[in-house]
């Protein structure tokens, strides 16, 4: 569900009231209600794609049940994985694979053409497929019991706050909560949920969408802008994608909490990371955890010869790149992160053992490295990404910045500053020092109202899509 949409603002209170109108003792009825809501909201995008969601759910649910009974668990796991991945492959990668094979044949002087399917990608397919596969893997390794109740499992896969763009939850976190009888309303959790919803909305509409106006203008026709402008746009894109995705994740987790369900943490102030390795412990944590458990460790992890370990890191981030999109730009982005981490490991620079100055320096270097990689993530083709980099490095271009006009720059600067100050205070002193968590009710409520006023006065309400919803 798009949290900054008009539909959400109207529907959310109704869903909330109807959910809590079901007595706490009828946990199954509540789950059934949430499942129905999740499917109905999903069908808003394209009703027929609910069948794909159902297929992935049924396949992984049955495969998990079979895993506990069969004498050939590997075969069942393989069949389950293939069948669960099939829609993802067909919708997302078929065209790209056909194109890549065609290019490979062309290089050998042969002709091969595989017609692409040209289907729109079902919303959230990458997220719910990964979540289901994670569950299957946990059952295979005996870390999670196969869920017998289809309703509970289907809700785990399709729970509406996280179906669009995660977080990618582990079954061991969510399923027990769904099975447990939830109290009428967990006051503290619900209040925290609303707080997260408010701050997530601020990040999305005030920071991300405001910065996007600049970034989209520059990257939309980068050949017309100076290297300095391209550099500024690429740094701002780092801000945009963080505010966009962290904003979405906060809102998803917040909505989950209002319904009494705890979802996986997804962000921990990633731009304060002291290395790219550290960055991945703070950025899209649910994905990096999934990649660690399902790709990195099965490949051998770090308990193997050094070279093999480096190879495992590269492969894990190659998969991460491919997961983000069927394009060479995402592959390059994934490999850049992989290579950076291999180098860090070789130099023993994954952590920071220096003083505050060394830490600050490493944080800045990491931010620049990550921002450099985001250029490949953002641009439509490898050629465009390289051109942007070339413009940034071109010293012959004028050293001027494009400024979108006083008002737009002012709002953008103000929004980014508020976000940076909040994250810095949280990183340095913990969230208890923030006005949101003040012991004084007056300060707390004043800060909520100030953020709300800021959203109304500075928010960009014309954009309603999240970057990660495209994956």
């Amino acid at each position, binding site marked *: 569900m798009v949290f900054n949409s008009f539909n959400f603002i109207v529907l959310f209170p109704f869903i909330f009231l109807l959910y809590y109108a079901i007595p706490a003792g009828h946990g199954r009825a509540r789950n059934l209600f949430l499942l129905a809501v999740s499917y109905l909201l999903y069908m808003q995008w394209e009703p027929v794609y609910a069948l794909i969601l159902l297929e992935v759910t049924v396949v992984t649910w049955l495969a998990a049940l079979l895993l506990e009974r069969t004498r050939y668990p590997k075969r069942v796991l393989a069949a389950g994985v293939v069948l669960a991945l099939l829609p993802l492959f067909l919708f997302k990668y078929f065209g790209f694979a056909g194109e890549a094979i065609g290019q490979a044949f062309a290089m050998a002087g042969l002709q091969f053409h595989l017609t692409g399917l040209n289907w729109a990608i079902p919303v959230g397919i990458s997220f719910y497929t990964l979540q289901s596969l994670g569950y299957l893997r946990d059952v295979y390794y005996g870390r999670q019991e196969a869920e017998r109740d289809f309703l509970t499992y289907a809700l785990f896969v399709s729970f509406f706050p996280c179906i669009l763009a995660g977080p990618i939850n582990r079954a061991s976190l969510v399923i027990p909560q769904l099975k447990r009888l939830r109290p009428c309303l967990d006051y503290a959790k619900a209040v925290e949920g609303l707080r997260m919803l408010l701050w997530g909305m601020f990040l999305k509409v005030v920071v991300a969408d405001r910065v996007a106006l600049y970034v989209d203008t520059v990257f939309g026709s980068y050949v017309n802008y100076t290297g300095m402008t391209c550099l500024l746009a690429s740094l701002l894109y780092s801000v945009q994608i963080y505010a966009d995705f962290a904003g979405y994740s906060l809102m998803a987790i917040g909505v989950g909490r209002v319904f009494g369900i705890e979802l996986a943490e997804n962000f921990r102030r990633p731009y304060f990371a002291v290395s790219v390795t550290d960055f991945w412990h703070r950025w899209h944590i649910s994905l990096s955890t999934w990649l660690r458990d399902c790709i990195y460790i099965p490949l051998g992890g770090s308990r193997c010869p050094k070279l093999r370990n480096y190879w495992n890191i590269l492969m894990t981030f190659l998969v991460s790149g491919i997961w983000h999109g069927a394009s060479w730009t995402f592959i390059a982005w994934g490999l850049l992160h992989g290579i950076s981490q291999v180098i860090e490991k070789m130099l023993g620079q994954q952590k920071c053992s220096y003083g505050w100055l060394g830490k600050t320096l490493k944080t800045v270097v990491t931010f620049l490295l990550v921002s450099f990689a985001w250029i490949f993530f953002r641009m439509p083709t490898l050629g465009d990404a390289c051109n942007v980099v070339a413009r940034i490095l071109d010293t012959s271009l004028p050293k001027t910045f494009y400024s979108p006009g006083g*008002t737009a720059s002012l709002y953008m600067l103000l929004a980014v500053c508020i976000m940076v100050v909040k994250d810095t205070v949280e990183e340095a002193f913990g969230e208890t020092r923030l006005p949101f968590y003040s012991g004084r009710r007056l300060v707390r409520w004043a800060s909520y109202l100030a953020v709300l006023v800021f959203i109304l*006065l500075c928010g960009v309400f014309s954009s309603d899509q999240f970057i990660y919803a495209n994956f």
Partner: protein
Amino acid sequence: MRRFLFKTGLFLLLAVLLDRGLGTLFSHMSDHASGGYLGHQNYIVNRSTDDILVFGSSRAIHHYNAALIADSLGLSCYNCGQDGEGIVLFHAWWEMIRRHHHPRLVIYEVTPAYDVLQGDNTKHLGWLKGHYDDEVVRREFDEINPRERYKMLSKLYRYNSRFHQVLLDYLYPVHNMTLGFLPVHSELDTLRIRDERQQNEKASKEELLTDTLKLRYFNDMTSDAGVTRFVFVYSPTWYGHHDFGIDPIMELAQRNGFLFFDFTDSTKYVHRNEFFYDGSHLNARGADEFTRDLICELRKHRVIE
């Protein structure tokens, strides 16, 4: 549960009160702003009694020296141009102006992207948000984006992205326009010329779709004009003539007997760096030169007799 609902309700009540209070304050400041863009806007919709009004986007506000027109024709003139705006804004303004005044002549600088072609019309409602309580404006909001009416329930949202403008124009009014004209004293930025060229090449390749709502607004304006004459103008561009999407306005002018002056292929201006600050906009020198040429055309065709 009761505690949660009570506190949530209380928070919402406080939020509504704050929205009303601050919204009313902004509304007062906006209505009483005497300088800047808001002062300009207040003058146009509430007080203008000028014989000649100039409508159009940035190409109007930077191209038409209203003082020169007024002096040359012996009539009062005001430049109502607004950056990045087109018929969506001027149709509403026209309805509001007509309540207290009927000018003798309206010079409309046509910008196809804002006046003819399809696009996101919601973004052109920005300057009208502050006047949402006006029936004309509300009707236009409903026609363009019915969902906006729900956003407009918030009085603060009406000043979204403009609240600092409201504060500045009310507290520190700047009078940097001369009868609405805002000359740009700047040299040509060749980098931006490339931008225009590329955009035009792109535009020529894409299918350009006409926005029927925009054309209807033009028809509404011109068909019930009364004593007002309309003149449509396409002022000079650095890179020469292009006519993407301009045809419907030319047809409208022809049908209603209005004049259409096209200066885009005028050799006096094409590729003359000294007259422009970018590919689409004249600088102060170019604006004065063009205004003189326009006055000659108006005299030649006896537009004002």
